[in-house]
């Protein structure tokens, strides 16, 4: 259920900056599910998603005093989310030294066979979902973030460009490449 709003985001920010902790809570609970959803899809790992969630909102908490009201709060929030996710992924990749080839190998590995009493159609759907998640994993951080903001959250390219601090043309390229890559990997599965 979408939360019904008594106050606008900007009113809540002003109240928060005047020391109203409840206003901050109301503000973040309008969007935190979306942030967690993006983080979860981005990392494919619940613990990492929670780490990203924490980092995003701690940055929001610390940065709200300096919020200039030049953009929507949601745009600012998703810009932070996008930065945290991409930085997180890059630092993880650096640490683990995973090559793109490795990632592709992991994608092409077969889905684990599991005993299930689910109806066939659900099993097929679930298998496709797993394959889709694995395919999303192989995208570059920028492609992945553009893809999730578009296909998961439904933002317009113009909005994504502001959130990711890129030109619209760059976002189009990320989306185009991401979808082509997914299509190639999921060929015959949809």
């Amino acid at each position: 259920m979408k939360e019904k709003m008594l106050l606008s985001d900007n009113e809540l920010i002003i109240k928060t900056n005047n020391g109203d902790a409840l206003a901050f809570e109301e503000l973040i609970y309008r969007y935190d599910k979306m942030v967690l959803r993006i983080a979860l899809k981005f990392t494919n790992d619940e613990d990492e998603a929670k780490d990203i969630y924490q980092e995003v909102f701690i940055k929001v908490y610390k940065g709200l005093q300096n919020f200039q009201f030049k953009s929507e709060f949601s745009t600012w929030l998703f810009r932070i989310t996008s930065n945290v996710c991409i930085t997180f992924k890059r630092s993880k990749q650096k640490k683990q030294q995973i090559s793109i080839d490795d990632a592709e190998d992991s994608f092409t590995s077969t889905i684990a066979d599991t005993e299930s009493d689910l109806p066939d159609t659900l099993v097929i759907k679930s298998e496709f979902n797993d394959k889709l998640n694995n395919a999303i994993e192989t995208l570059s951080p920028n492609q992945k973030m553009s893809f999730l903001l578009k296909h998961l959250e439904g933002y317009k390219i113009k909005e994504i460009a502001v959130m990711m601090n890129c030109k619209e043309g760059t976002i189009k390229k990320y989306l185009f490449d991401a979808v082509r890559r997914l299509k190639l990997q999921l060929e015959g599965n949809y």
Partner: protein
Amino acid sequence: MGKQMEHKEFLELMQFYLYDELDITKKNMFDAHLKSCNECSKEFEAFKEFISSLSDEIDKDVDPALLQDARSELRGYIRASKFNNSNNNSVLDFLKNIIYKPAGLAFGGLSLLLIGVFSGYLLFKESNIITDNNQNLNSDQYKIQNINFIDSDPADGKVEFTFESLTPGHIKGDINNPEIQNILSYALLTEQNPGTRLNSINVINATNSTKMDEEIKQTFISVAKYDVNPGVRREALKALSETQVDNEIKDALIYVLLNDTSSGIRIEAINNLITASKKGIRLSQNDLTILKEKMSSDNNNYVRFQAKNILKEY
């Protein structure tokens, strides 16, 4: 007639056509080509199916337990950060007091921090504070979790519970002790176990004080609005209604009435709103608009009926 679209350009634009992100000229050219080219039309249908499968299959749900967990951790951080910045009456100071004050009695073998049984107004006398060692802890060590009640029955005016931080803790003391209440209100925001959260509300609410501490009031409001467990939300709401209702609590009641999916909790909220209104809390124009909406659209008869009753008074 304008420029014809080439196959290659058509294929490149399919994705953005489906996103509805083409300008009107390109969109018209795209439509014209789609009608006239069989090959591209087939390609487009297949691509549309693919894009649609992406939207259908991408899992949009977030496990409520995961969300609750993430929220609890964040609340813990924010609360701890507030404690670290505050100069008095904080859980941090409280725990530091317990640890730094000299031991009155040592309990061997167990790593327990035990506060003696407090009574009446004799709070925090050094003789009541018992610790088995003089540890030098820094603030990072006070992340309290896994509170387990040994005695949560408020009848005797005492409460006893253990908790985990870097050093495990065990506290026994008067339920009116504000620091104990502070720890429990912290637990209310961060504990995973709904039973512990319920116990915390009941213990805090069993105090003799007629006026609720501001910090605790904020915590109860937060829990009444956002806790994932309806039983916990309801208890927080009840606790709020038993205190002196002010505009902040009234706003929380309105919020719950507007957003809570449980009709039982909305009933609790509207009943409390009626009581508050009788006690002189004025409803704003915005509140009345919400009540009008409730009067006609709430799926619970009682809520609709009571919304109408309140509106009659105005």
